[in-house]
Each structure stands twice: as structure tokens, then as C-alpha cells.
């Protein structure tokens, strides 16, 4: 093996990580050099965030090599990676709302004066200098509570810069920033690069990747795919690598006659969340709602089901209006909703399988207001059997089951209400491959029986394999409506990122920021 290259700051080779039975990383590799900005791209769930969390010391790898500044390392905590010289800006800002922005920046490493007393004057002065460098005017004494997402991101960036780290990782830092703010961030990133630091930049916006970065690495399904100098590649090439995969491994939907409209959504808007969303789901049809995480897909589904309100627009089931913000009315109108987070929102994990399945139809099972366990078991038995829920008894608590079986219980719960429309958010997240195809077969069967299905999924192959029609959501709007025959991974990815073809990119003006 050759000796460590002094120019290489971070080297990851064949890193693997599993969470229980779910494999997050198979063999991820990444090599980042001094004085460069390295883009890391990949679909949702490709393993970018897991990889970053291993570098940051949040998770520990199961296998593979991890070198930082030439040394083999294995960070047991975020403190260890921080003191080694790694700063991470996470997708979600992690600030202390009650403390001043300055304390947020310097927590745990405040400048000390005589007698180990925190030197507040020095701390405020440093914060002011940082804000000046970033070109923002934020009162260093104000609390972090109430900052806009963009300003929170600025605080995160200030924090990372003040760490004087040799490696700075930014996980989608621009998602909440406006154009001017993005330019400012880029100017800072470039000046850090010119100081000889290494930066890793994760983004779904290809125009930004091509504008800012020197090198781009692609990940897919927890594996390393490629690394190229940005000048030698193109958006088309990158997109192809991100999605290039066989769809055959998944259970495809069997062809079903499509019936009359079941759900009609007209001009649904909710300020700051989604706007002017209109679509129709017909009997026997599976409509896939694709898009990036945070695009507003789940929010649209929650509004349709009445969990959240909306400002304008209408929801109609079988020609009858569904009142807004009324879950019970939505259930009565024939909507079932399998939420994204099954443990928190879909199940009473401590309760038995039977009780969970019978929970929505409970009203019909009571006798004189009392609910007998035997009635619950009778009512839920057939559903559990039909879904092949693998549990030895209906009275076992749901918490003891695997993720796949839990998901089946949640689906059974809604099937027991005999819905006309099933909304299912991330139907196979965190489920092993075997159960995955069972869930797909089930959805296909349901569509065959004339149930309309609205399926939200971040997994492109799942959407392409299952959906009769793909609606792509980007930043709260539906940007594409693609029929099954025309749906390709590239088309969906373009619509989800609103990517611009490389020849359309005009280099944005770089603003001068005092360094």
C-alpha cells in the first residue's frame, strides 16, 4: 500500500454500516483533498447522510478504512471528531433556542479570561467578526429562538468556520437560503478552500454543484459509484449514475383497469408549505408522489387526510367534499392513511396486534360501550392472516415485531375500514427486501380490487415499478405528471431537482465579501 498522500485530508474506503437488518452503507468510499470543494451527490437514501455521520462521530462504521489527515481514526463521539478538526453543518440546524447566537457559536469552547471565567467581551467581538466575514448583520446578543431558517444556517456556518477545522462538511446548506445568501456562502466556501481547507458539499441542486465544486462523487444504494473532476463531467452523466439501476428486482404492479376518479384535489395551498396542488386518483390506480425529502409530499398527504389544515383549495372524495382539518370525516369518506413514521404515528407499539388492527373500527365492535378482546381478535384475525403478519399470536405487543410486520399491521388496520383510497407514505422504508416485495404485492392486489392508492416514496425504483402515474413534487408544487410508460429515472430526477441542463447554466456573479 502506498504511503499516505499529504494532500489527502479525508479518506474513506469500503465503509459499511447497518442498522439492525437495514443496510445503510455497503461499500462507501470518498477521498477529499486539501484546498478543494468536493460534491457528494446521490438519491435520497443513497447513504450520504450516514456516511457524513460516521465522519462526524455520530455513528461508528461496521467495516472499512477511515483515515483523517493520514491517521487511521474511529471517532467514538462528535466531540472527538470536532477536536480532530472536522466541522459538520447538518441539514437540520442544531441550535440552543434559549441561548444567544454567540453562545451557540462558542458553546463548549468559549474564550476564557482570568480564572477560567468566560470572556464575554472577546466572545461577542469574535462573533461580530465572523458575521462581518459572512456579510450578515445579526445582533450577537440575540437569542437563537425565532431566527429564520436561513439565519440559523448562517449561525451553523459561523460555528463551523470558528472551529478552524481542516475539513468542513455541509449537508444541503443551501436548501433554505435565498440567492444572495447562497452567493455569500459560496464566497466564504471558496475563501476557505483557498486557505487550503477541504470542503464536502452535499446538494441536490446541480447548478450549485457545478458552480461551486471542483470534484464530484456519486453514491447509490450505499455504494460508491464514481469520482470525477467537475470539468470532465455533465449533469446528464451524474443523473444517469445516480439512478442507473435495475428496476426488475422489485415487484411490478399488475395491469388493472382504471376506473372513475376517487380522490380529486383542486388548487390546494398552504402558505409556505405547498401551493396550487391539483391531482386526481382513480379507482384501481396507483399514483406515485415522488420528490426529494422536504419537497412537501407528506404535507400534501396530511392535508388531504385532514391532519393539517390548508389555506385554500378543495378535496373531494367520490364527488363529495371532504371537510378540512377533520380526520374522522376523512375516514368516514373512505380514506385510509399509513403514515411515514409507523412507530410514532401508525402504531400503539405497546398494544397487541389485534388491538392495533381493530383500533379504527372500534366503534363498530363495541357492545353496550364495552370492547371485548375477543371481539377485537375476531375482527382482526382475517386481516392479519391475509397480510401474512408473522406473529405467533394476535395478542402479542406490536413492539416485538420486525419493521416489515409492523408495517403490515398498520396497513391491516386501514384495510379493516375498507377504504376507497389508501394514502401510504414511504410504504417500505426500513423494511427488508423480502417483506418489501410482499408490501408491493399487497398494494398491487388492492389496486386490483379497485382501491385508489396514493403512494409517497423516496425510492425511485419503487415509484417507477408500482405507479401508474408519477407526480413529482418540488418545493411545494407539482412539477411533473408522468404516465407509467414515459416515466424514466432521469425525467423524475430532473423534475424533482428542477435541474438546469449544463449549457443553460450561466455563471452567477460572485459578490465580494470581506474575508
Amino acid at each position: 500500500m502506498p504511503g499516505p498522500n499529504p494532500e489527502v485530508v479525508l479518506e474513506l474506503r469500503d465503509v459499511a454500516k447497518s442498522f439492525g437488518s437495514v443496510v445503510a452503507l455497503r461499500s462507501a468510499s470518498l477521498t477529499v483533498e486539501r484546498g478543494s470543494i468536493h460534491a457528494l451527490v446521490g438519491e435520497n437514501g443513497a447513504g450520504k447522510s450516514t456516511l457524513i455521520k460516521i465522519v462526524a462521530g455520530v455513528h461508528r462504521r461496521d467495516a472499512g478504512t477511515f483515515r483523517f489527515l493520514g491517521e487511521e481514526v474511529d471517532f467514538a463521539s462528535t466531540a472527538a471528531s470536532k477536536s480532530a478538526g472536522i466541522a459538520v453543518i447538518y441539514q437540520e440546524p442544531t441550535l440552543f433556542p434559549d441561548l444567544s447566537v454567540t453562545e451557540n457559536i462558542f458553546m463548549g469552547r468559549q474564550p476564557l479570561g482570568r480564572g477560567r471565567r468566560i470572556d464575554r467581551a472577546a466572545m461577542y467581538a469574535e462573533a461580530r467578526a465572523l458575521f462581518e466575514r459572512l456579510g450578515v448583520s445579526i445582533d450577537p446578543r440575540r437569542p437563537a429562538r425565532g431566527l429564520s431558517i436561513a439565519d440559523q444556517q448562517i449561525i451553523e456556518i459561523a460555528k463551523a468556520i470558528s472551529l478552524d477545522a481542516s475539513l468542513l462538511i455541509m449537508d444541503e446548506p443551501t436548501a433554505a437560503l435565498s440567492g444572495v445568501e447562497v452567493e455569500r456562502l459560496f464566497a466564504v466556501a471558496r475563501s476557505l478552500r483557498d486557505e487550503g481547507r477541504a470542503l464536502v458539499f452535499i446538494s441536490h441542486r446541480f447548478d450549485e454543484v457545478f458552480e461551486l465544486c471542483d470534484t464530484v462523487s456519486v453514491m447509490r444504494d450505499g455504494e460508491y459509484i464514481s469520482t470525477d473532476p467537475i470539468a470532465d463531467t455533465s449533469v446528464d452523466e451524474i443523473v444517469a449514475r445516480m439512478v442507473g439501476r435495475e428496476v426488475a428486482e422489485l415487484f411490478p404492479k399488475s395491469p388493472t383497469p382504471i376506473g372513475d376518479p376517487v380522490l380529486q384535489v383542486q388548487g390546494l395551498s398552504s402558505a409556505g408549505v405547498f401551493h396550487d396542488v391539483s391531482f386526481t386518483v382513480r379507482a384501481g390506480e396507483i399514483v406515485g408522489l415522488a420528490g426529494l425529502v422536504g419537497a412537501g409530499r407528506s404535507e400534501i398527504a396530511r392535508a388531504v387526510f385532514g391532519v393539517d389544515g390548508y389555506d385554500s383549495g378543495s378535496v373531494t372524495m367520490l364527488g363529495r367534499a371532504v371537510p378540512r382539518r377533520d380526520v374522522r370525516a376523512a375516514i368516514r369518506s373512505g380514506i385510509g392513511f399509513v403514515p411515514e413514521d409507523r412507530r410514532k404515528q401508525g402504531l400503539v407499539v405497546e398494544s397487541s396486534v389485534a388491538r392495533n388492527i381493530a383500533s379504527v373500527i372500534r366503534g363498530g365492535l363495541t357492545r353496550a360501550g364495552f370492547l371485548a378482546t375477543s371481539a377485537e381478535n375476531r375482527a382482526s384475525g382475517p386481516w392479519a392472516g391475509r397480510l401474512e403478519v408473522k406473529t405467533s399470536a394476535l395478542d402479542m405487543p406490536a413492539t416485538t415485531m420486525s419493521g416489515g410486520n409492523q408495517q403490515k399491521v398498520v396497513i391491516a388496520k386501514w384495510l379493516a375500514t375498507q377504504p376507497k383510497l389508501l394514502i401510504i407514505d414511504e410504504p417500505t422504508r426500513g423494511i427488508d427486501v423480502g417483506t418489501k416485495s410482499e408490501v408491493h404485492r399487497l398494494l398491487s392486489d388492492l389496486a386490483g380490487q379497485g382501491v385508489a392508492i396514493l403512494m409517497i416514496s423516496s425510492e425511485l425504483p419503487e415509484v417507477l415499478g408500482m405507479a401508474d402515474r408519477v407526480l413529482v413534487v418540488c418545493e411545494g408544487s407539482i412539477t411533473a405528471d408522468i404516465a407509467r410508460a414515459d416515466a424514466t429515472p432521469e425525467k423524475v430526477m430532473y423534475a424533482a431537482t428542477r435541474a438546469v441542463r449544463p449549457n443553460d447554466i450561466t455563471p452567477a456573479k460572485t459578490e465580494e465579501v470581506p474575508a
Partner: protein
Amino acid sequence: MTALTLNPSEISPVRRILGGALRSREIAVAVVLVLVIAATTVKNDHFLFGANGWRDLLLTPSILLLLAVGETAVVITRNVDLSVGSVVGLTAYLTGRIFIAHPGTPIFLVFLIGLAFGGVLGLVNGVLVAWGRVPALVITLGTLYIYRGVFLSWAGSNRVNASDMPDSFLNVGTKQILSIPLLTIVAVIVLAIVGYYLYSARGGRELYAIGSDPDAAQLYGLKVTRRILAAFVLSGAMAGLAGVMTAAYYGTVSSNAGLNLELQAVGAAVIGGVAIFGGSGTVWGAAIGAFLLVTINRALPVLGVQDFWQQFVVGVLIIGSIVLDRVLTVRRDRKIIEARDNA
């Protein structure tokens, strides 16, 4: 860009400090305290100017003040310590037993033993909370009964009487230096040390950070477990010190020593502006809250308020201060959002 407040340099430091003081919870509670004292004194001037008026005003809140200081350190980290009343009782009884077994024990040493013993009991709480990952409410509710149970079974039908303890120790309970009771001086010194630590030391600021967002604290790489442990040890040690003081002040230790003090300690902290979900508040506020709580209980009978209504008033005070917090928070958030939208 979204500058949310005026540029700091545009506000003079004097105005900033003055503005901060007017909004400060500590000062608001202190004003209420002064009003209560003034009103009661007008009604009956013995309350302040009587033979023991001044002394009692300062002396009676001292024990609760210590508990409120320890409780604040714990509540700031988004935990709670309900065992402090039992720790007070147990330590007070231990103090008596030490004097019965070794009458010549130096007083200073007894105070140190009380402090250390309370610290150990606090450490038990801290270990269970920090490593057991069980809510502090449940753990310390459990140790509240366990510590009280140990106390009762140890004491049996015995109680410690004034005659069991040396006069020099009992004198500590009433001694005054320059007309200020010694116990009050001790409590205020402890208050100042803890207050300084929480404001000016990294460890103190980290307690606030942990309470403000525990997950973020983990991501920051703060030593969350160790800090929470330290907060519980501090709270236990304060309760231990308060236990020794209780023995010196009352002269007797019966089985109900320290009973229900934990709720008064939490109440004092809340009245003094310590957020029950952690992240904000000062020991200064909690100390003034303790003063107010004790003083109002003494003032109401003087003002002719019946026994039942005294409890009622304390309840109103606690709920009132929480409602006040809520209203101020909502108003502040609305202002911030307005400022953001107008930017």
C-alpha cells in the same frame, strides 16, 4: 438580509442594561417581594421593625433558598429533583445522631459531612437519571419515598431534641453578624458561588445548553451525562447543607423534617423565572422566589388572611408566573416573526 434587531452599536450600553433590567423577571419578583413586605409592615410594623422582625425576614427563607439554588441547577438541564425534602430530613437526623454519638464533633466538620452526605444522595439520583435514561420525575419521586423511608426506619420513634446537640451548634441557627443571620450569610455566599458558576463558567453554560436542546447538546459533543450528574450532586449537596441548617435552626428533628420542601423548592424556582422545561432562568431569580414564597406565607396571617387562602395564594402565584411567562413568550415570538416578515 434579515437583521432582526437594531444594530447593537446603535443602542447605548446603559439603555441596553436598563431595558434588560425592566424586562427581567428577577426584578419583577423582587418588586412584588418589596410590596408584600411594605404592605404587611404598614398593617403591623412588628413584621419588619419588631424585636425579631428583621432577623426572621432574612433567616426564615435561608433553608428554602439553598434548596431553590440546587433545584434551579437541575431544572435548567430539563430535569427535576423531587427528593430534596427527604434529603433535608435524612441529613438533619444524621446531624443529630452525630452529636449524640460524638458530642465533641467540630461544627465545621458536621457541615462538611452534611454537604457530602447530601451530595452522595444526589449522586444516586444523577446516576439513575443519566445512565438509566429514565425521566428524573420518576426517579426522584422514587428516591423521595426511599430516602424518607430510610429516615423513618432509622429514627423509629426517636427524635433528636435540642438537648442532644451542643449549644454552640444551636447558636449557629440564630447567630447574627452585623445584624445579618449567619445562616443567611452562608446561603447567600453559596448562592453567589453557584450564580457565578452558572453565568461565567463553561460548565454552567453547558447546563443551559443541555436543557435548551438535549439532542443538539449531544451533537455539539458536550459531556451531557457528566453535567447532568453534576447538577444532581449539587442539588443533593445543597439539600444536605440545608438539612444541617434545619437541625441548627429548629433545634429538634422530628419525622416530618423537610416534608414537602421539594415542592416549595420547585415553586420558588418557577416563580423566580426558571423555565420548567430547562434552558433559562437564574439562581438569583429562584432565590428571590424562595424569599417571596416564605415571606408571603408569614405575611398573610398578619394581613388577616385565613389559613386556606394562604395555600391558595401560593398556587395563584405559581400559575400566575407561568401564565406571565407564556404571555411574554407569545408576544416576543410574534414580534420576532413580524420583524422577520418586514425585513
